[in-house]
């Protein structure tokens, strides 16, 4: 494996072993233990699109492991605005760094960058394409909650059309035999080619507009934000989006171990009353972004995570 562009770059064994590395790195991610595995290494953060969590968590992950980070900075003031091609930008950063994390508005940009680069590329989102490092932290959070990834019933809800996190995650969950329920307004359904692709891989997929009617069978509910600008007018948005909001009172009959995830930022699709319930996992999920990316940085830089980590339980 050179870089991580889509989840297809990882086998199921790779996923299990990276998640196990992430588990051992938890005390380092929390700052309880210092482990400079990546000392002397430099990460190039190339975010051609705004990002808070992904960019910051890559930066934190690198620094917790003793590495350093250089940033592209604001695209508006960088060479990109002067019309530099992605190819040329990558040639430059490739020479400055040992590994690159990037987000780009164009789909396929990460694969393109990997073809142009000598160093590994970590895809932090390319258009409506893939976001595999988010998928790894989602899988880590699911495994942490249920002790397994196998055979779970997972509802993905909200904007399934444009949400790249749900595209990558669906593909990954199917590989572990999960049953998927896609709950979305008709306008924001999972793209047909993805549903077909999942079914071709033997997936048990149900499409519905009814989130709350299905919530009691779920082991995981993965919420996403429905953006107003996807709708023709605000009334239409208000009418549709209301059905994809969770309140604590909706959770009365759900499975006790069910967990709610969200890639964040949320707007009003998860009411603050849910935060206090045992089901809310989205803030842990955001923290897990650091530990999952630490494990991925080590893997792509061929640095072994030790079996025993000072301050860790393992």
């Amino acid at each position, binding site marked *: 494996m050179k870089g991580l562009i889509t989840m297809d770059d990882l086998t199921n064994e790779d996923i299990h072993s990276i998640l196990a590395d992430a588990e051992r790195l938890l005390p380092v991610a929390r700052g309880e233990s210092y482990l400079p595995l990546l000392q002397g290494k430099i990460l190039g953060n190339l975010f051609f699109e705004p990002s808070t969590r992904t960019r910051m968590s890559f930066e934190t992950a690198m620094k917790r492991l003793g590495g350093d980070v250089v940033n592209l900075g604001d695209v508006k003031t960088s060479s990109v605005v002067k019309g530099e091609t992605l190819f040329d930008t990558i040639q430059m950063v490739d020479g400055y760094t040992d590994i690159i994390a990037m987000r780009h508005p*164009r789909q*396929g*940009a990460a694969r393109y960058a990997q073809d142009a680069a000598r160093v590994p590329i970590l895809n932090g989102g390319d*258009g409506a394409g893939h976001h595999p490092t988010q998928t790894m932290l989602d899988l880590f959070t699911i495994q942490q909650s249920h002790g397994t990834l196998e055979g779970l019933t997972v509802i993905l809800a909200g904007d399934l059309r444009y949400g790249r996190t749900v595209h990558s995650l669906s593909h990954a969950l199917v590989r572990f035999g999960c049953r998927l329920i896609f709950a979305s307004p008709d306008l924001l359904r999972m793209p047909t080619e993805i549903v077909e692709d999942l079914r071709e891989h033997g997936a048990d997929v149900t499409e519905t507009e009814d989130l709350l009617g299905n919530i009691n069978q779920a082991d995981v509910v993965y919420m996403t934000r429905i953006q107003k600008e996807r709708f023709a007018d605000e009334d239409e948005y208000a009418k549709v989006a209301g059905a994809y909001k969770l309140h604590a009172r909706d959770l009365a009959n759900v499975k006790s171990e069910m967990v709610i995830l969200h890639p964040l930022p949320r707007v009003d699709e998860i009411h603050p009353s849910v935060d206090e319930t045992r089901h809310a996992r989205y803030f842990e999920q955001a923290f897990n972004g650091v530990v999952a990316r630490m494990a991925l940085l080590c893997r792509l830089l061929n640095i072994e995570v030790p079996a025993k980590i000072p301050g860790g339980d393992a």
Partner: protein
Amino acid sequence: MAEEHNMRRVTAIKNGTVIDHIPSGQALKVLELLNLSGDTSVPVSLVMNVPSKKMGAKDIIKVEDRELTQSELDRLALVAPDSSIAIIRVYSVAEKLNVNLGDEVRNVVRCTFSNCITQNPREPLPHRLKVIRTAPLALRCHYCQRPQDLDELVLNLL
């Protein structure tokens, strides 16, 4: 007999290329693919919707005084993957060529997805479409992985 009759619908050519077994109705697309639709320098004969034992109905194109190159054949594979090509020299078949897509179509056509990274004409890496299936033809962009709309693809030839 029917096949022979078809070939005689237009005069035999002395030198050039005969493209046979084009799916019925696709001949105009093939001309476009081979940049022959606007080319007035060579005579081109077109036969459309003639009976074919193998295909039910088919189109045939004869291009005089021009032998198609392998890269032109690769383009042809996008709309007529099962067509057969004969190079004619002094009224007889000098060579038979096959259309072969292989597993990738490289630098022949641009991805049809409007937000693909390859839409920037200044990006220098090759345009690459992966062949997922040949019958019926299914292609996916190597970069953005979007399935390609074959009707639109013809408009995106490089």
